[in-house]
């Protein structure tokens, strides 16, 4: 599968603040790609550059082999679903959906068919003559999607489209979007700061922070094999620890040695270690690799959330369906494949080396 959209060395700054720095991104045809990151990470700017609402200071936007960097939004073969729906309130639902088709001078019968088809697709049949104001937030968002897809774009850009909806509706819409994407067979580029949303819907997740791409991968890769501490911390909850790679497949944390499956980090190298709270097994003190005392216990419904403090003072976050009462001494065990080793970021690496000497 060749890529449909390529961002090549794209940089953008607003009022002297660098928002995107030399960004490279490639989106394959017919995939659900999510740009995920905290607010201000540049994800919306990236989307707006693809949509044509912002012009990159440097770099190129390639669409299907063509350089579209200087093309205005109305000449691009993609459509956008905006965060606040951006429906035209002086038009009814049918007129809203027909807007793009009327501009392209499509025949009346074709437009009528398309309106009916699109409303059916978003489960709002018969809403043609309703006014925008009479719809709920979720319904307005469906109309915004319908209005975009009748134009048969090759790519649909979605800018936090579910941000304004309540939790239940948001979950329903997530499934709806996956269904739509599969039915339409087009590429979705989705922007969100909600990691759960990203994990649920995406084929590929692009984690961004401060204008840089931190990691690109499938939801499983992003969750299970985060490449750095930022990704590990941003996606789900995790224990991020300072460790030393003794040799291949052996890492030392707080003086205790854990077997792992990672190789190629060298010997006696400082590394970041990520262990997900649900991957920690609490056993009896003498069976554990590290000993600690349970200092915190909360019932979360599906599981218990506990904090186990080890003698060095680190509080390990543990999720388990088995309860461990506060004050009880326990042992900590982790299976080798549940330990994720990451290189320390360049600047901190130097610090760590300096401390060792």
């Amino acid at each position, binding site marked *: 599968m060749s890529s449909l959209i390529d961002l090549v060395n794209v940089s953008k700054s607003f009022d002297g603040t660098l928002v995107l720095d030399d960004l490279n991104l490639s989106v394959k045809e017919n995939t659900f790609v999510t740009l995920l990151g905290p607010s201000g990470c540049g994800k919306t700017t990236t989307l707006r550059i693809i949509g044509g*609402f912002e012009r990159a200071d440097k770099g190129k936007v390639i669409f299907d082999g063509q350089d579209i960097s200087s093309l205005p*939004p*109305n000449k691009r073969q993609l459509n*956008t679903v905006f965060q*606040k729906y951006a429906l*035209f309130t*002086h038009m009814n639902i049918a007129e809203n959906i027909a*807007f793009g088709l009327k*501009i392209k001078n499509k025949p009346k019968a074709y437009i009528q068919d398309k309106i009916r088809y699109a409303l059916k697709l978003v489960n709002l049949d018969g809403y043609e003559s309703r006014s925008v*104001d009479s719809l709920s937030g979720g319904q307005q968002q469906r109309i915004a999607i319908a209005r975009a897809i009748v134009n048969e774009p090759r790519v649909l850009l979605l800018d936090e489209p579910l941000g304004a909806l309540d939790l239940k509706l948001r979950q329903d819409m997530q499934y709806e979007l996956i269904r739509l994407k599969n039915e339409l067979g087009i590429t979705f580029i989705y922007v969100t700061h909600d990691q759960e949303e990203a994990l649920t819907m995406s084929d590929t997740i692009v984690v961004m922070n401060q204008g840089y791409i931190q990691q690109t991968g499938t939801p499983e890769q992003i969750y299970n094999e985060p490449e750095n501490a930022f990704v590990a911390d941003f996606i789900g909850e995790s224990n991020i620890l300072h460790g030393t790679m003794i040799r291949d497949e052996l890492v030392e944390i707080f003086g205790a040695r854990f077997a792992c499956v990672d190789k190629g980090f060298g010997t006696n190298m400082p590394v970041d270690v990520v262990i997900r709270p649900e991957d920690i097994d609490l056993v009896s003190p003498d069976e554990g690799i590290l000993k600690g005392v349970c200092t915190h216990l909360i019932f979360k419904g599906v599981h218990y959330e506990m904090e186990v403090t080890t003698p060095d003072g680190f509080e390990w976050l543990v999720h388990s369906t088995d309860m461990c009462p506060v004050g009880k001494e326990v042992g900590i065990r982790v299976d080798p494949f549940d330990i994720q080793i990451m290189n320390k970021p360049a600047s901190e690496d130097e610090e760590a080396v300096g401390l060792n000497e």
Partner: protein
Amino acid sequence: MKTTKDRLKKTVENFYLVLIMIFLYAPIATLMVLSFSNSKSRTQWGGFTLRWYGEMFESSTIMAALQNTLIIAFTSALIATVIGTAAAIAINSMKPLPKTVIMGITNIPMLNADIVTGISLMLAFIAFGISLGFETILIAHITFNIPYVILSVMPKLKQTNKSVYEAAMDLGAPPIQAFFKVVFPDILPGVLSGFLLAFTMSLDDFIITHFTKGAGINTLSTLIYSEVRRGIKPSMYALSTIIFVTVLILLIVTNFAPHRKLPHLRHGALRNEGGQ
């Protein structure tokens, strides 16, 4: 006890309201009544007549002044609306600091005393060698009308969701079309009330017109002023009555225009109310 107290309160309230109304409208009512009185006396009712109205419509100077007034009001309001709307759009998309500065500068002509504006415009026209006449009145009126248009368009622009314009472009509309198809309908009530406000202001103006008109041309207000110096004729009452009624109607239309929404929106609102 309670009902008596309430009734007293209501009576006092109504009395106060009537008193205010009398203060505000008694002079105008007097003028209107006298314009129908068949007597030149200002203290005696001489029976109902439309004579003064007839006399007014037969007077070629009054009709010429009326024509000037209407042409100037309409043209200046139209041009000011175009310039003011464009200006409001530009100002709205500025960054906060320049926006505040420009809005401040825009407001100065409105706060400035009319007589100062009038004299400075007159001096400027003379200094630049423009002879005073119809054109200078028109230019002057456009000048003082622009801020009113900006001020009535601005709030509507602020309410408009910026991504609506982007959505229209996204759906294939070139920028100009996107503006006229989706942004303009949103700000139209503001543009209309800006136009009507400008029209009223122009119709109303005496001082600035007085300084910029030159000899040989009159609008209604300057005509009345010069007639009054020669002694008031009842036909002037008739003329003033007509001006007052026209301005009143325009003001009522201006005030109600923003609330008159498109029919389907009203239905939506009604449905919402019914559902609650």
